[in-house]
């Protein structure tokens, strides 16, 4: 009995490890590729690490694929970072204020606003892409951080998350604060906000990833190289890379492009999982 159990257990672990290996395989390939020079990669793929690791990353960060016309990846990473942070912080601030208003006040059109926000769940950016582009263009916001971030800053899921959470905060806490003399904003700042910390952290992880991984919108809104984000910038490098075959640099960029969000997920795993589960309810 025990030996077959042990065997089963080993088998289970083996398959799981295999699964992890298969999932991680593309990254391994990319890492290897980013450690060689361009010529080594043509022909049979080298299954060992080369010694151009630091060189490649330095080149890519500083000059990018100059021959391909791509900008410095360092700049692109910066743009991605700004975009992701602004969207994450913006979304959280706007949503938490709206949720606070909807839950803790009674005012005309309250339900109307609620449904307005709710409907946006059904309007992904791809569906309204052309006119949104036009709006940004008309506002003269192309090629700017504002144009990159503003349309993506309102979100129904974040508002719902906070609303759901606020509904679980005991009524007596609000009453005690009122008796203590706290007005609504004081209550929000001193009591509600600290209690929302874990929800904010969870949401931050999810939204940061969302912002960092934006593709279609930056593609349309940025026309100058200096404003490219790294996720969309890769595509241009790829289309040129074919002709120039500088795959080592492309792969280095790819690794750089996925590193920040992956790090955020791994380091903040607990909040990430909580955020996923909460936002999907």
């Amino acid at each position, binding site marked *: 009995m025990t030996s077959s159990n042990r065997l089963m257990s080993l088998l289970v*672990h083996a*398959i*799981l490890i295999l*699964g992890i290996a298969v*999932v991680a395989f*593309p990254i391994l*390939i*990319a890492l290897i590729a980013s450690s060689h020079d361009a010529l080594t990669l043509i022909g*049979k*793929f080298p299954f060992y690490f080369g010694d151009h690791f630091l060189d490649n990353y330095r080149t890519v960060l500083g000059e990018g694929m100059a021959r391909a016309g791509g900008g410095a990846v360092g700049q692109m990473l910066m743009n991605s970072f700004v975009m992701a942070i602004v969207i994450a912080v913006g979304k959280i601030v*706007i*949503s938490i*204020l*709206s949720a606070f208003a909807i*839950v*803790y*006040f009674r*005012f005309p059109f309250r339900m109307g*606003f609620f449904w*307005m926000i709710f409907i*946006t769940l059904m*309007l992904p950016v*791809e569906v*309204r*892409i*052309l*006119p*949104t582009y036009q*709006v940004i263009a008309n506002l003269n916001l192309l090629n700017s951080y504002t144009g990159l971030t503003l*349309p993506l800053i*309102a979100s129904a899921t974040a508002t719902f998350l906070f609303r759901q959470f*606020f*509904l679980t905060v005991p*009524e007596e806490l609000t*009453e005690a604060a009122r008796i203590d003399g706290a007005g*609504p904003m004081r*209550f929000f700042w001193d009591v509600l906000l600290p209690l929302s910390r874990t929800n904010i952290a969870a949401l931050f992880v999810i939204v940061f*990833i969302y912002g*960092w*991984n934006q*593709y*279609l919108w930056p593609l349309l809104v940025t026309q100058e190289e200096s404003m490219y984000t790294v*996720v*969309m910038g*890769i*595509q241009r490098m*790829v289309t040129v890379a*074919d002709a120039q*075959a500088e*795959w080592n640099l492309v792969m280095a960029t*790819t690794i750089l*492009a*996925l590193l920040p*969000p*992956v790090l*955020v997920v791994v380091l903040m795993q607990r909040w990430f*999982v909580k955020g*996923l*589960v909460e936002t999907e*309810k």
Partner: protein
Amino acid sequence: MHKRVTFDNKLLPYLLVSPQILVTIVFFFIPAGEAVVYSLFSQDAFGIEVNFVGLSNFLFLLNDPHYLRSFGITIFYSVAVAVSALIPALILAVLADGIAKGATVYKTLLIWPYAVAPAVAGVLWLFMFNPAVGIVAQWLKLVGIDWNYKLNGNQAMALVIFAAAWKQISYNFLFFLAGLQAIPKSLIEAAAIDGAGPVRRFFTIVLPLLSPTTFFLVVVNMVYAFFDTFGVIHAVTLGGPAGATNILVYKVFNDGFIGLDLGSSSAQSVILLIIVVILTVVQFRYVERKVQY
């Protein structure tokens, strides 16, 4: 639903919701409304001549072989992505749920692909399958398969399916694992005492109890495939070769921005909008039932 205890301020709540409402109106409702309006017009490439054509854009699309082909491709694509992402995730989740120790380690090691952008996933897979330098492409050639996704439409489709499914596996794994851990152990044990072997237990007890999660994930995966994989297509195949991977959301972009056919593209957007609404309503309906479950 609201609180029993509320504040009385008259002006403050409006101030608090205004940023969100403002952005929502300017960047959601107005563009969506304009998309609907554009879909009812046709204009030439320079936007000089604008004619109201009613529903003819829609009628044209519904009879356009290119559009119908794109529709079919998208459906096939989203089903394929859903299946390819769900089955490995389910297997891994079942295995991870079975072991006592180390489940968290495996969890950490399996969830990070979610953080990879679809476009980046596309590039990774593109590199592996590149006919010239790709490692997997070289293996395929060794086995005798003539691999060139740039020429072969089916191969291109396979490639984008794998690239898109790859990163969804971790998302599905997380939810399957949570769903499995929510099944009371006592039910499984009761079945074991009743004489059911592991396979029968899985199919008659675990799977049915997992069905709300499964259904939910199917919808999410299909929505993901429909809308969020634009980056994969754009980075890897640009809709080709010869329209083999021209999914609906890509077509909207292509026709609108590249082809500059505003009317048709807007009409396609509206159709997509209707699909989203249907899928969202379905999801909400079922999620409600899931919660009652």
